[in-house]
């Protein structure tokens, strides 16, 4: 850490009276050094985002590299801030106390002679703290960078023009042939159930059908032969219609026209 850039505006306020201390010079009793009105102090202390943030602040304020942490000094300063917070009855997150214990542990381990045998594996007791501080510092930086990215609604604005002439377009649902067949099968099966009731069908009369066919025909226009048949009537109905047509033909009431072999047959009423 080489910059003395402050962490946030709230810290700025407090930083000025403390700037005299540089380069790890011992820190005297905090309350006497802090020329901060009690209200502002509270805001200042509340501005910390946890113990790592407070530690980083203490380190950065003294223009120290994280690797140069004077553990004894920083620990003392940290404890003094903690005491201050407690004095101000600020609710302390448990993490602050955990950090205090950790700092004390590091400090005591640094004071003890290291056993020569464990030399290879054992790292400096500060290493883990330094790692955590560095990691947190990276994301503090990332958060600041993120905040400076051009952001919608603050720096950039979606450009739009009203689509006043917009109509509601609905895409009809897709249908596949299999669904259609399923539906038909189902309805036919159901229809069978209905027809199972013994309903006496009136016998289809060829005579009646003859007049029906005739009614459908026109003197002027040809009608498609096939259109005279109603498949829903079943075979019976089709045959009756066919016989009616033959009978009408015999009686010369209609004429059939087919322009060429296999072409559609058309029917017209004879005048």
């Amino acid at each position: 850490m080489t910059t003395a850039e402050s962490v946030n505006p709230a810290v700025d306020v407090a930083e000025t009276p403390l700037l005299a201390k540089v380069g790890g010079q011992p820190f005297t009793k905090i309350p006497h050094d802090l020329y901060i009105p009690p209200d502002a102090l509270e805001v200042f202390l509340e501005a910390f985002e946890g113990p790592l943030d407070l530690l980083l602040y203490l380190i950065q304020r003294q223009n120290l590299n994280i690797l140069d942490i004077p553990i004894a000094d920083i620990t003392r300063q940290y404890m003094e801030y903690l005491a201050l917070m407690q004095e101000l009855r600020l609710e302390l997150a448990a993490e602050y106390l955990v950090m205090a214990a950790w700092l004390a542990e590091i400090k005591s381990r640094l004071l003890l002679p290291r056993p020569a045998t464990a030399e290879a594996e054992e790292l400096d007791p500060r290493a883990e703290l330094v790692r955590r501080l560095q990691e947190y510092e990276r994301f503090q930086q990332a958060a600041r960078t993120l905040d400076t990215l051009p952001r919608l609604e603050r720096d950039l604005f979606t450009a739009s023009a009203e689509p006043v002439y917009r109509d509601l377009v609905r895409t009809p649902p897709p249908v596949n042939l299999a669904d259609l067949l399923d539906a038909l099968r189902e309805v036919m099966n159901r229809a069978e159930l209905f027809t199972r009731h013994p309903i006496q069908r009136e016998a289809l009369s060829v005579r009646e059908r003859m007049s029906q066919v005739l009614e459908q025909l026109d003197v002027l226009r040809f009608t498609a032969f096939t259109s005279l048949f109603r498949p829903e009537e079943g075979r019976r109905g089709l045959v009756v219609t066919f016989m009616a047509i033959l009978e009408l033909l015999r009686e010369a009431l209609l004429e059939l026209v087919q322009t060429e072999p296999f072409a559609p047959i058309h029917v017209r009423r004879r005048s």
Partner: protein
Amino acid sequence: MPELKILLEALLLAAGEPVTLERLLETFPEAERPDRDAIRTALVDLAASYAGRGMELVEVASGFRLQVPKPFSPWVSRLWEERAASYSRASLETLALIAYRQPITRGEIEEVRGVSVSTSIMKTLQERGWIKIIGHREVPGHPALYATTRAFLDYFNLKSLGDLPPLAAPRDLAAIGAALEERTALPDSSPQTEFPDV
């Protein structure tokens, strides 16, 4: 400060709604605030610059607004195409009956289905362009006769109604067979042998 005309463009685009002259004025710090005439002139300039573009500047009751001109509405409308919910069973049955039994009246469909067919189903299928009225049955009430359209065949990738798959169930086959025969077999086959059971 950007050119007034361009700044007004940015303001109107960002607003996305009509903005009054007063509201436009208020976006300037007092010391730099242009007068109303300057804004009006710039707006006129801006409006003229949109000739042949994808937007137009209009003054409506609640202020100045950028809008997408009418000629673009067919494309713009399709931006929000809503996929309708899939068809109901009733719609599919109705469509299937029309396809396999055309021409058919609504009453005949109802007879087979055993329930009434709602007007909205017939309307939906007609709006989709899949069925149409091809005439009226010469019976009392002159009910409309429905048939499927070319669009229906196109949608299902069929060359003709004859390409509709036959139904597997034997009972149904007779019905469908009759429907298909009506269109294809009848004219060229001997009805005497085709219909032995009458």
